[in-house]
């Protein structure tokens, strides 16, 4: 069983981040399509959960008292699939079936098709409402698990997110923690240009959430934010993680062209080489 680690090994996490990014890129390249930018931006956010904060057990994906991670930005699933494979939810080799019929690794995640996938996603803006519903049921059942919901910054242009934000605050859903992967880009360009959502932290605070703003690639800040959020009583928590879309690969970073395109073999080689030179 993997439980919260009292003293996270941050150096190991940094090395792991590089390895996960490489596997994510290989997985997407092999699939021939997918979303590298938004997968690379959320790597540290997933490490902080799956190797530090989340109470989960890959051998018992249905363990009723596990903490839940809901990936609302479904297009980031190559990152989640990679993390789940590293934890042994399914064999790593299966990553090479991503998006290929017949596969359990759907282009956007499908609940029930693969161990560790808690919700179906792909139509944006819906995860937070589901997180709230789970937390409401848990309160009735006196179950103390926490529910984490990861959304993109483009995604929160969806009105349902703000309906859910009001619901979580009104019902004081203290077990709900929203994570915003604020990677600055959406499909057609910078969020700021297409429809500005700033000031982000102030918005979540105004909606009654305990809000923590961090650099989402600084694993120490990520771990600290999750630890702080878990101590908050009486209100939901939002972690606004400032990230870089395409993080780790210079030609992908903050380049909208890499929202939904798989790297070709030479581009993959270039990306892997660059990642392998990262000193952690």
């Amino acid at each position, binding site marked *: 069983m993997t439980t919260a680690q009292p003293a996270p090994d941050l150096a190991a996490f940094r090395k792991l981040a590089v390895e996960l990014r490489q596997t994510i890129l290989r997985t997407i390249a092999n699939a021939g399509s997918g979303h590298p930018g938004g997968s690379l931006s959320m790597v540290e956010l997933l490490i902080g959960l799956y190797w530090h904060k989340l109470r989960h057990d890959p051998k018992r994906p249905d363990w009723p008292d596990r903490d839940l991670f809901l990936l609302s930005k479904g297009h980031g699933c190559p990152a989640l699939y990679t993390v789940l494979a590293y934890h042994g939810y399914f064999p790593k080799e299966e990553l090479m079936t991503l998006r290929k019929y017949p596969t359990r690794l759907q282009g956007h995640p*499908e*609940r*029930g098709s693969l161990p560790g996938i*808690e*919700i*179906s*996603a*792909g*139509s944006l803006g*819906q995860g*937070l*409402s*589901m*997180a*709230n*519903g*789970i*937390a*409401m*049921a*848990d309160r*009735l*059942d006196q*179950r103390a698990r926490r529910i984490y919901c990861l959304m993109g910054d483009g995604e929160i242009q969806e*009105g*349902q997110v703000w*309906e*859910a934000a*009001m*619901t979580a605050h*009104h*019902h004081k859903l203290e077990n709900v923690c929203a994570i915003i992967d604020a990677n600055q880009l959406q499909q057609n360009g910078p969020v700021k240009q297409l429809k500005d959502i700033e000031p982000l932290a102030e918005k979540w605070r105004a909606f009654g959430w305990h809000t923590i703003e961090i650099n989402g690639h600084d694993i120490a800040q990520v771990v600290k934010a999750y630890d702080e959020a878990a101590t908050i009583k009486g209100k939901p928590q939002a972690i606004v993680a400032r990230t870089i879309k395409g993080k780790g690969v210079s030609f992908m970073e903050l380049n909208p062209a890499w929202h939904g395109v798989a790297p070709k073999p030479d581009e993959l080689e270039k990306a892997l080489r660059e990642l392998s030179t990262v000193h952690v």
Partner: protein
Amino acid sequence: MVDKATRDGFGEGLLELGTTHPNVVALSGDLEDSCRAVAFKKQYPTRFFSVGIAEQDMIGTAAGLAIAGKIPFACSFSQFVTGKTLEQLRMAVCYQKLNVKVVGSHGGLSVGADGATAEALEEFAHMRSLPFMTVIAPCDALEAKRLTIACADYPGPVFLRLGRAPVPAITKASDAAQIGRANVVRSGDDVTVIACGVMVMHSLQAAEQLAKEGISARVINLHTIKPIDRDAVIAAAKETGAIVTAEEHSVIGGLGGAVAEVLAQTHPTPMRFVGVQDRFGTSGNPADLLKAFHLMPEDVVKAVKDVLRLKQHAL
């Protein structure tokens, strides 16, 4: 017996489920009074969730409750709970095969004076097209209560369409109400009228009228539009050779469409559709609107006579 709306039957059924099914919970977007979920809310305050005027969030929240093992009944006006939320119902509820019960009150023209924006006339088409969704439209309050109770033990997503206007009791409390099983409410050999909701009553009245003219009309209460009772529909086509469908809904994609889909592939049969003719509703007293939209017993009678001419021609 006093006339009673199907929404009232739902409210009674939900209240009863509160006792028999501890996992039943309810949600509403500020319409719990109109949907008759208030008694449940009063009796079980911790099991009722107010989500504000936010139908999309309500459906997503219901999905979350179902993921965690609850049986949520999400209530609003039929138009809003199926129309604004189609995407949430598709991905969060049906794609995940969740045990969410979607309750649409004020279906059809029964909201009356409020007018077109609240008059749901397309929900059967929307809901029927969603994989795994069950679609139910009870004909009276007693049946609404029985089917509400049946919903709780029927796994998977269900849409329950209710009316606002009081209607006479057609069924008895002791009648069967099995989801997916149509009830033949009047036997007959010349033609079959297949109806749901308020149109079951109008079809029975039409059958009375037709009997006086020597026409023997079978009437089927097709309270479950999906999954459709194929056996009952095919038997009616084979045994009576002519079908009229009647619904307080658009003639596109509703009960009539569902019946036609079955018969076109099994036993092609002359048909006529009584329903709303591809238009929006309007303000008025529900009884007047049913007349204006040609949903009265005499409209069923006319459709029967039309279809019998087709049947004669086909012979």
